[in-house]
């Protein structure tokens, strides 16, 4: 077995990943509960590193990690050159456009103000629809923006819809479905093809 380094997105993805690795019988993976940023499973020849979701693609693309586990939203936002070798089936949610009403508050000719943490996805989506927009980039709590008049609508991830509901927002359009993906560096994938395939097989057997 080749030695594999896997970058896992901290937070929600990481919990799902820890669960799935445990189910697949990988011993020793505990997630990032301690302060250490790396965790090595000697028996399996794997080192996990824990990084911010936005950074996973950077680590994998530059080969600092062979593989990565990260939400599809981050892959779309960063448009990196990676192989998306497996859909891990957890962390399912949707990227949506939402606002105070269930329709766009402005006509097509007017510039729409969109608050989001996903400026690239947002520009690409509205660009295809030929809708003029101005992006308001926020780091979080995007739902606040329409309430305070900072934006007309938002583009954000929705899992159950309860945050939207609690803030009086409604879904206007669905952009795409999102779930956790196993991504690979293209060159690691070629050199460690057998080991990576074996890992994928073991994980896919227990994927939800």
């Amino acid at each position, binding site marked *: 077995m080749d030695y594999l380094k896997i970058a896992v997105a901290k937070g929600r993805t990481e919990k799902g990943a820890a669960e799935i690795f445990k189910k697949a019988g990988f011993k020793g993976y505990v997630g990032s509960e301690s302060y250490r940023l790396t965790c090595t499973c000697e028996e399996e020849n794997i080192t996990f590193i824990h990084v911010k979701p936005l950074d996973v693609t950077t680590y994998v*693309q*530059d*080969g600092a990690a062979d593989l990565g586990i990260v939400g599809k939203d981050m892959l779309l936002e960063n448009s990196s*050159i*990676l*192989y*998306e*070798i*497996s*859909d891990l089936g957890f962390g399912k949610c949707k990227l949506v456009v939402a606002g105070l009403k269930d329709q766009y508050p402005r006509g097509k000719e007017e510039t729409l103000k969109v608050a989001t943490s996903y400026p690239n996805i947002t520009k690409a989506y509205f660009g295809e629809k030929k809708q003029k927009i101005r992006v308001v980039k926020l780091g979080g709590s995007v739902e606040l923006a329409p309430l305070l008049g900072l934006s007309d609508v938002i583009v954000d991830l929705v899992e159950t819809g309860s945050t939207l509901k609690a803030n009086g927002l409604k879904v206007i359009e669905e952009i795409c479905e999102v779930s956790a993906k196993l991504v*690979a*560096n293209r*060159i*690691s*994938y*070629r*050199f460690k*093809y057998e080991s990576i395939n074996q890992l994928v097989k073991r994980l896919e057997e227990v994927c939800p």
Partner: protein
Amino acid sequence: MKYNPIYEEVEFLGQKYKTKRIIEDILIKEGYEYFEPSNFDDIDRFLPLTNNIGQAPIVKVIAGDSRILALNPDNTTSLISWIAPLWQDDVKLKLFYSSTAFRSDKEAGIIEIKQIGVERLGEKDFQTDAEVLLLALDILNQFRSDFIMEISDSKYVNGLLEEIDLPLSVKRRLKGIIYRKDKKGLSDFIKTSALSEPVSKCLLNIFDLQGDAKDIVSKAKRLPLNQTMAESLQELDMLQNLLNTYGYLGRVSFDLSMITELDYYNGLTFKGYYPGYFKEALSGGRYDSFTEKYGKKIPAVGFSLDLDQMTKVSLDRSQKGCEPIGLPENSRS
């Protein structure tokens, strides 16, 4: 801030020069002649380059008379746009260049890509493809023997796409999915696109067609095929035999789902990697149909090497105390 001592910087530059010389010497010995791409040109010349998968945009320069020029984004394009209007049908050319291409990048500003490349023009046969591929393998092998050469024939995927009656934009999206090796994306695409059963079957299997050359060809032959796809497999089969003869079979990996960033190949394609360097060291293939965009279909096959990576490989090698690199003993031609 502390910098490297000056002699280390000079050592790197010296190694770069040596690396370049070694590769150029191999090419000259094989009968290739020098070509010099121009540094900038009318931006219109490079329009066929845009719309490619995963390509960084062109760097623009404003000339004194306000015309917009492109800083050479691709040496092959520069060569073909120059040579196509002059082309005569009975000509056979073996050219090489050693030049810099430029791309614009959000983070880095401008990326400089130092390349050495080889182009064979005017010959369209298996023999020529094989010679170019063997030359690429010989050069990689000269610097380090544990590389991998990924090989495919773009006629396989393109032949499969011929069977699908969908708009070009949708086909391009499908190519993007195959490029990313996105199994889930592919099965979703198949579910929503009403494809015929043989095509769906072939698509669903495409990611299994990677690995050992002999296995892959026989596996692929068991799937439904059209003429174009069968042709690609026949050529890959011949190639596999040849690579076996020259002892390179262990260093190559066939990947029929391979799609190149510059989607301009219409036959053999290949990419070479060294372990621990996370970029292509070399990439190339046959690109006759690309030359058509410049007014004349010229049989063309070639590859380019990333000079910075080759320098790093040879520097790491000399630091490990390996023997210096020399010219290969026997020329094949």
